[in-house]
């Protein structure tokens, strides 16, 4: 009997302490956001799976991914990308297809689904303003944001066509549902660019990083800033004289993908499935105001009621917003960015 007990104990120990823990390397954007993803998502998931997860940070995920894959030296197993970058990477065959035997393909709404990059959280590109400048009477629509006579003040916009050309059309009276059909015509793109050119003299800063946009709000350098809701919320929560609205926001998603030729492909798929369980993507909102893409994340009271209004995809915030269309950007992104850069140059 005793030999059986010993071997059973040994078996139990070796199961609990595997000699070779499966290692997986994950690359995120780092900073507060990267830390939130670790605390809420992959940290607990790694513990559950018994994986040894290593973290790398890259502010420009796509450029890093492309370098790794084209150089044939892939070191990361999971990479965190914006969905437009994810679609772009997929089009350049830099990604492994998601293994839908491991990851549940029906856990995200049909419109957000991707075969290569699994969308897990969402954010809005929103209008934010200084409450010191506008008090109780801020601009309420993008059309008013463009109205420099009624709302004088210094604007700050991102130095990138993404989201801005959508917003430009919204400000010009295009309905949310018609934004991409309009942009898909050459006249539509020109119309958006012209609209941006019209506001250009009132733009004091074209920001290049989210942290910079938050700083501009905090310092009072700009009165009206187009930024990501997470950034605006952070400044507001820190006591900044700032507010923002989800009305007319452009909603984007971030996603997780496995680079082509990743060393631990299967473990990576398993970790993606585990770290995006509804409770974990709901937990992410404890740290940063980026709401789950998986509708199950909003069910069962996983997210406290008062926090829902700070999330772009919360049920009550839908309606006036536009879902950023990653496929449109893959097809037309280069032309749009070029037109934008030329506008900036004029």
């Amino acid at each position, binding site marked *: 009997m005793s030999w059986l007990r010993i071997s059973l104990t040994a078996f139990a120990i070796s199961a609990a302490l595997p000699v070779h823990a499966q290692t997986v390397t994950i690359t995120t954007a780092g900073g507060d956001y990267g830390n939130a993803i670790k605390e809420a998502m992959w940290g607990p998931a790694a513990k559950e799976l018994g994986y040894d997860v290593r973290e790398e940070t890259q502010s420009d995920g796509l450029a890093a991914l492309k370098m790794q894959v084209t150089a044939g030296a892939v070191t990361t197993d999971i990479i965190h990308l914006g969905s437009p970058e994810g679609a772009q990477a997929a089009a350049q065959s830099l990604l492994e297809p998601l293994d839908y035997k491991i990851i549940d393909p029906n856990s995200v709404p049909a419109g957000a689904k991707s075969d290569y990059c699994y969308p897990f959280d969402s954010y809005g590109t929103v209008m934010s303003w200084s409450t010191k400048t506008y008090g109780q009477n801020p601009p309420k629509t993008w059309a008013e944001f463009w109205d420099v006579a009624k709302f004088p003040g210094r604007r700050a916009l991102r130095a990138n066509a993404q989201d801005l050309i959508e917003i430009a059309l919204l400000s010009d009276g295009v309905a949310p549902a018609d934004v991409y059909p309009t942009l898909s015509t050459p006249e539509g793109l020109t119309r958006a660019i012209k609209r941006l050119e019209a506001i250009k003299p009132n733009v004091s800063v074209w920001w290049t990083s989210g942290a910079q946009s938050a700083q501009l709000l905090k310092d009072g350098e700009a009165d009206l800033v187009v930024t990501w809701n997470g950034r605006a919320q952070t400044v507001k929560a820190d006591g900044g004289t700032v507010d923002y609205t989800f009305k007319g926001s452009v909603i984007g998603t971030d996603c997780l993908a496995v680079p082509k030729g990743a060393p631990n492909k299967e473990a990576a798929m398993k970790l993606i499935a585990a770290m995006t369980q509804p409770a974990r993507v709901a937990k992410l909102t404890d740290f940063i105001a980026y709401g789950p893409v998986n509708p199950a994340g909003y069910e069962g009271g996983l997210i406290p009621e008062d926090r829902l209004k700070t999330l772009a995809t919360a049920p009550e915030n839908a309606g006036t917003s536009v879902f950023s269309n990653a496929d449109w950007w893959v097809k037309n992104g280069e032309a749009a960015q070029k037109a934008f850069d030329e506008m*900036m140059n004029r």
Partner: protein
Amino acid sequence: MTVLADPALAADARRERRFFLSLSLPALFIVGLAAILPILWIIRQSFLTTGGEYTVGNYEKVLSSGLTWSALVTTVELSFGTLAFCILLGTPLALALASARPRVANLLMAFVMLPLWTSILVRTYGWLVLLRREGLINAALTGSGLTAEPLPLVYNFTGTLIGMVHYMLPLFLLPVYAAMRDIDANLVRASASMGATLGQTIRTVILPLSTGGIFSGSLIVFIYTIGFFITPAVLGGGKVNPLSIRIERTLSTFQDWGSASVLGILLLVLMALIGVMFLAARRLMARNKFGTAHA
């Protein structure tokens, strides 16, 4: 060059020269590995499509784009602007340093060197604190009633230039200072004893004798400023876009390594052109100096 009469001595000298030359081999090896190889790689990359086929398309695309040329103009404007301010501010400062008593000179030198030991990022963000709309300078200006509105000092060309001049000034100053220190004090005394005013002494004795230093300083300014990235990125507010920023954008927004490589080569060519210009100007000035001496 001295000609040695004794063949044994000459052979010795040859052996010595060869030995000294061989001492430079490790350095040459590192330069080859760290500078020449990547440049060759970039040149190759500039002729490849994203699919890896040979093409001249990248060159057509980059050279036919108005964005490239305006970035080139911005690069040159920033470099020459920085140089102009370095000469205007740095030359008198070098003169003051070179003529000050040693203790004062050392103290002044410490002030000059201090920023050189500070990280460029810290310094750049430091300027942001000073120059922004509610920053120290504007608060002082509007607070004292000197200006009604805050001045647009940053997030534009002005702010970028301020940051770049601040960075480059010590690096420009050092060779100029060294050249001025080397001027024989007797020459200055001689010119004074011949009745020259201070202005005349500076113009006819000190400046001509420090042109070498000013040239080296200017070349250093160019080498650095042509590739400046952080300062325009932070202080330019997205409105000042030299070639370095164009390269970053080509990579991060378009993932277009081919075009980015072409832009990098353009930067290299620009540097080479300026180097040749400098050499030519230097030779011309040296010839003129002899010309006046003969006249």
